[in-house]
């Protein structure tokens, strides 16, 4: 029964994606062109990547608010090491190391010390962004080899599909398989639905959560690498505020903020929905402030609506039960 309701939510988001595409086409004749759609999808590739691991973390009823700051830190490290003469593959590897460590630190604070992830990652949101400024100051490192910037900026040869988006597609499929088709994936739902029960059932809750935070850090490192090459610029302030869009996408995709419910399909559809709405509004010159307002409203809407639906449903059930008794 519950499962059915959830699929309904995801279906609605997918339908809304097409409505948004149609609406965009009505707003501007330049919207539904291959090149615009290519820009548009490239524009949210980092948010898309990070939303995959965010889905897993919110599924186990935790949250990681530091994702965009880890992205900025990894971008700064990548740039600083490259500027110091490191070969690019090593610099990228180091950025992943930093991302993994940042995630591990989050995870240890949450699992070993039992601190709420909301508080921990608000702290590290500021901490990692601060470290990024320590590494790079207000400098910008550019002049990356064309081979790498083409990876960030270019499309799959012969198509208009941005390379970062292709990367996202592959990772989304892998995440979906792991989440919906493996014991590990099912254990996430169990932990999110009832952590204590999951512990008693013998699930390694601590270990699972720790690994999710590390995974999230690594994904932010990947997103940071993509971002750095896509803009050919490593800066400490890269992707400031992206955590809002990531969390908005995951919640709009039907993942419950209380854990235990959600799917990769929903998240992917919501990422596209937010991206397309933003793209359609920018092409008709809606200002940036309004776009932020739209993202904020979508976020509230996606938390509020399932809540309201659940209340309506339980009220109806109560009434039905009342009738059955009398």
């Amino acid at each position: 029964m519950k499962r059915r309701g959830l699929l309904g939510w995801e279906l609605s988001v997918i339908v809304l994606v097409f409505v948004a595409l149609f609406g965009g086409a009505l707003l501007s004749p330049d919207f539904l062109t291959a090149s615009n759609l290519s820009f548009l999808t490239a524009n949210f590739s980092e948010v898309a990547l990070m939303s995959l691991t965010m889905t897993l973390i919110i599924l186990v009823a935790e949250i990681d608010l530091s994702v965009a700051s880890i992205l900025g830190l990894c971008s700064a490290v990548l740039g600083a090491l490259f500027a110091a003469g490191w070969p690019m593959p090593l610099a990228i590897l180091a950025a992943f190391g930093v991302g993994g460590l940042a995630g591990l630190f989050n995870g240890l604070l949450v699992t070993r010390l039992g601190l709420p992830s909301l508080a921990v990652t608000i702290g590290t949101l500021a901490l990692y962004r601060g470290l990024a400024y320590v590494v790079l100051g207000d400098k910008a490192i550019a002049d990356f080899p064309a081979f790498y910037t083409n990876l960030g900026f270019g499309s799959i040869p012969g198509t208009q599909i941005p390379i970062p988006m292709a990367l996202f597609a592959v990772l989304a499929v892998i995440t979906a398989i792991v989440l919906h088709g493996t014991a590990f994936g099912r254990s996430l739902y169990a932990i999110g639905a009832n952590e204590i029960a999951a512990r008693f059932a013998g699930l390694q809750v601590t270990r699972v959560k720790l690994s999710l935070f590390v995974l999230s850090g690594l994904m932010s490192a990947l997103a940071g690498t993509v971002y750095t090459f896509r803009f050919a610029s490593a800066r400490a302030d890269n992707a400031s505020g992206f955590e809002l869009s990531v969390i908005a996408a995951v919640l709009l995709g039907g993942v419950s903020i209380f854990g235990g419910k959600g799917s990769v399909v929903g998240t992917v559809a919501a990422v596209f929905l937010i991206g397309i709405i933003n793209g359609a509004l920018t092409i008709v010159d809606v200002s940036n402030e309004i776009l932020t307002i739209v993202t904020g409203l979508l976020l509230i809407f996606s938390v509020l609506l399932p809540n309201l639906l659940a209340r309506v449903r339980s009220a109806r059930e109560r009434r039905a039960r009342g009738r059955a008794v009398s």
Partner: protein
Amino acid sequence: MNKRLTVSALTLSLGLLSAVGLAQTGSLKKNLKIAFLPKIINIPYFTTTDNGGLAAIKEFGGVGKAVGPSDGGASSQVSYINTLIAQRQDAIVLAANDANALVPSLKRAMAQGIKVVTFDSDVAPDGRNIFINQAKSDGIAKGQIELMSKLMGGKGEFAILSATPNATNQNAWIAIMQDELKKPAYKDMKLVKIAYGNDEDQKSFTEMQGLLQAYPNLKGVISPTTVGVAAAARYLSTSPKKGKVMLTGLGTPNQMRSFVKDGTVTAFQLWNPGDLGYLAAYAAGSLASGMITGKEGETFTAGKLGKYTVGKNGEVVLGPPTTFDKSNIDKFNF
């Protein structure tokens, strides 16, 4: 019969069209879509540049607009550039937030035939057709000395209150000023001290105080930095030397308005941001009309500002700075 009439009418109108077409060579195309993309939208400086540009676009019958981010990040400008490409603008006029991050998107824009003009802050030269430079070091330094000389009657001691000792632009200006002082016209002016306020308000304030105490015969101070000149003016306005020591420099009208009105400062300079936008718009229009390509030596006309020549690396220089005083300061808001 009827058909022949149509045909001849058609021929006639074709002939007229080509005549009109001929008459239009050498002037800007109509209905060009030109977009201004400032570093940050809705701040006074860029509102002034953009309005200057939009006025110019209106003059030559184009369709202008100003869009831009509310934060100074390079990535936000990239998505605006991508949108402008999708909207098939004829030209993009931008002040770059990052010299390199924007280049790939701008190259993509140029590959689709969109002309790119930068102003205020340039990108790497392969990312744009023309850069409108607000002022050459030469023009600023000479303009400042000329103004100082006029204010202090061409005679006496004066000092410079600079930013930091290693600021490239400041040092370039000071070197040119020192050269300029060797000219016979300035032979009675003596530069007694170069002080550094580090572009900090407090430091500049105390440095100004120090200058007035150390040099009792001081007749003038040039502070070619917006922070320095405002701090110096604040000190001078409460000092007994007000009206005796002439202060000038590079400042913005909003910072300096009260000091000009209360007589602390007679005149100061800065480039006119409205003209900067105006010139950038005409450069974009000329590029999009195919009249220029951005090569060195090409010339174009920029409405009321007159004729400009494209210099090395596709640079066009706006010209000498504008002098602001009691008579014109209220016309500016930035």
